[in-house]
């Protein structure tokens, strides 16, 4: 039972719940206290001291993020002493910080910048020696600039507690401290899985994604190139936030129109490829179950999870579905099927994808993701970058009319669309597997047991005579726990969906920075609303899917599919 009592804050009585921190009590009562190292649901570290408040009884400054409320407490949140302390902290952080806000990707979306503005820092009072570290440009997805790092430690926390990867940690001591990898090597040889969650929590520009604007613009300006673009299921419900529109709003049509205005020759929907993935993956699942294949089967859509498996749990690589991810299936279909129908050579197509994900940048350049030496996907933009790209081309999204995606490769079922949320792949796969095994459609398509943000969702599904156990996990640390149970002998699970990011792709590392839990919930709701409202709810009824199998692929797991849509992975040696 919650025990409530009152504490005195700024001479007013405020209700507090026993056991919560001062910060939680303040936030719930409409008082904002600035924080830097604080992250919701993580153990407070109290490292940055930004959240200090004054304890009126002792006159001391205490960190509200880590200090529990107590009866009789008297707090001042914005006394001169408190404000002075906070301002000094910001001034100290700025003293060795590079003064290149104008050139920084995080300009106008930087917590340090905002704090310095809120606290009225208007002059450089403390002059320190500027940081002068090397930028780590070695990774394919993520760039680290230790100069801009303020050592809040949020990236270290996320990498360890959410991903279970710990590619980075504090290195050295005192004023020499930096965030670094083991032996200060590049991210490319570290165990980093490129999920990008570190970027999502970085308050400054110390962690950013690798940008491919120049290559894409060059391709757009090259008349010999046919430039095509595909966008992931989660993009249309996430992009709005980049433009300050309410979170979760689906602006698919406007996005199609904007992409055409930028100059992309064809606009495709990766959700189509998600349908294709479902056709292949459900066939593979049935094949494994009926022919005593390796079980449980695990999804392969998430490139961060795949790299994690290669590095940390290579013994489970045979469990991972051989299906390429939707991005790569689409890339492959574009350069092989679409090219053929349009009489184009694969090398004359420049294929761009928009993903809510930084690991997709890594996936796109993998050797396994090529056909006859040609990359399936040439460049990857994150949701954030798409926002910047649209602005770069001067497109006012409030004044343009929605359009539909190009066909073929643009029609999708809602099963493909819900890939964007944790549990979506599972649900979509079951819908099709059920049909394939029983010849009948599910009576109720929705499977609420696999939906939502919980770390792990497990349920049993009855398909005719067969009962299969399924599990859905998000956050690689949760995947690790489940895999340990399986290693220790659990056999009641046949199919596992693993997504690295919290909530699935809607919470991906390429999404809008500064979104909160509610924004993620709206994105998820929006995806499931689409599923509720539209009629084409299963991948195998998607007319364009039927067409591509008729005209080109033959059958799921057939010869052509194997050549273009499937791959395999090997153990990867990294510094871990």
């Amino acid at each position, binding site marked *: 039972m919650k025990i409530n009592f009152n504490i005195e804050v700024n001479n007013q009585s405020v209700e507090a719940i026993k056991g919560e921190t001062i910060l939680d009590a303040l936030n719930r009562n409409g008082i904002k206290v600035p924080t830097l190292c604080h992250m919701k649901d993580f153990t407070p570290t109290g490292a940055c001291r930004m959240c200090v408040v004054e304890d009126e009884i002792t006159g001391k400054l205490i960190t509200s993020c880590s200090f529990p409320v107590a009866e009789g407490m008297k707090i001042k949140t914005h006394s001169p002493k408190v404000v002075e302390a906070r301002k000094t902290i910001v001034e100290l952080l700025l003293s060795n910080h590079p003064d290149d806000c104008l050139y920084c990707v995080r300009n106008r979306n930087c917590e340090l910048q905002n704090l310095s503005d809120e606290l009225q820092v208007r002059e450089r009072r403390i002059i320190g020696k500027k940081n002068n570290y090397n930028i780590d440009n070695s990774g394919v997805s993520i760039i680290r600039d230790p100069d801009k790092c303020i050592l809040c430690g949020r990236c270290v926390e996320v990498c*360890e507690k959410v991903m279970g*990867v*710990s*590619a*980075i*940690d*504090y*290195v*050295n*001591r005192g004023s020499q401290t930096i965030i*670094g*990898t*083991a*032996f*200060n090597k590049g991210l490319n040889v*570290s*165990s980093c899985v490129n999920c990008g969650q570190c970027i999502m929590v970085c308050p400054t520009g110390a962690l950013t994604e690798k940008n491919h604007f120049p290559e894409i613009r060059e391709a757009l300006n090259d008349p010999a190139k046919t430039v095509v673009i595909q966008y992931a299921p989660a993009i249309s419900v996430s992009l709005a936030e980049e433009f300050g529109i309410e979170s979760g709003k689906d602006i698919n049509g406007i996005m199609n129109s904007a992409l055409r205005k930028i100059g992309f020759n064809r606009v495709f929907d990766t959700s189509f490829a998600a349908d294709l993935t479902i056709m292949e993956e459900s066939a593979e699942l049935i094949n494994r179950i009926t022919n005593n294949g390796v079980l449980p089967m695990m999804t392969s859509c998430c490139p961060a999870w795949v790299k994690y498996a290669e590095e940390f749990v290579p013994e489970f690589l045979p469990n991972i579905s051989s299906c390429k991810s939707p991005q790569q299936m689409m890339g492959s279909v574009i350069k092989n099927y679409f090219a053929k129908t349009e009489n184009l050579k694969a090398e004359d197509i420049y294929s761009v994808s928009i993903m809510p994900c930084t690991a997709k940048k890594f996936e796109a350049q993998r050797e396994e993701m090529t056909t006859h030496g040609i990359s399936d996907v040439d460049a990857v933009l994150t949701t954030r970058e798409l926002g910047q790209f649209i602005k770069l081309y001067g497109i006012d999204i409030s004044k343009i009319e929605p359009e539909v995606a190009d066909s073929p490769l643009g029609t999708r079922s809602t099963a493909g669309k819900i890939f964007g949320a944790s549990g979506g792949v599972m649900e979509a796969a079951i819908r099709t597997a059920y049909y394939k095994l029983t010849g009948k459609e599910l009576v109720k398509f929705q499977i609420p047991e696999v939906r939502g943000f919980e770390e792990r969702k497990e349920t049993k599904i009855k398909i005719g005579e067969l009962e299969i156990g399924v599990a859905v996990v998000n956050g690689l640390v949760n995947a690790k726990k489940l895999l340990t149970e399986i290693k220790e002998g659990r056999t009641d699970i046949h199919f596992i969906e693993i997504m690295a990011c919290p909530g699935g792709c809607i919470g991906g590392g390429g999404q809008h920075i500064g979104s909160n839990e509610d924004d993620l919930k709206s994105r998820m709701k929006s995806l499931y609303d689409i599923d509720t409202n539209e009629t084409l709810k299963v991948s195998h009824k998607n007319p364009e899917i039927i067409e591509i199998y008729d005209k080109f692929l033959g059958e799921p797991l057939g010869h052509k599919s194997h050549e273009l849509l499937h791959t395999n992975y090997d153990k990867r040696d990294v*510094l*871990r």
Partner: protein
Amino acid sequence: MEDKTINILEQYPNSGNDSLIPILQEVQDAEGYISEKSVIKIGKHLDIPSSKIFGVATFYNQFRFQPLGKYHIQICRGTACHVLGSATVLSTLEKHLKLKAGETSRDGLFSIEVVACIGACGLAPVICVNGKFHAKVTDKSIIEIIENYRKENDESEK
């Protein structure tokens, strides 16, 4: 060749995080430094990511990540030595050898280690090369000392 790190790890069965620092110390004693390979082995044994081990090890001055040089120079930066100019001696030494404290020269000849006090304050500023003390070192004499060692090495190799 026997693996010293593995031998040490065998002395720590079923150990957890709390054994990390003693293990690192023993490995450094046995091998002279903490190598990348050792860190990976220790990490596997204790189930700690190598970044965390590197983080812990770099926190302490006592751990080195390069093998010791043939001539290991310990330079005292304690109070007495500091007062008598050990900072200048250190910076001269670093410039002369193009090395930083904690590093080893590429030819493997010299390595520098900063120590807090070696209990020879009467001789300040003092350095210790392979256990041999050099007293009242100045920014001029330090170069002479180093070059003498280099000569000694050259002659021994002839």
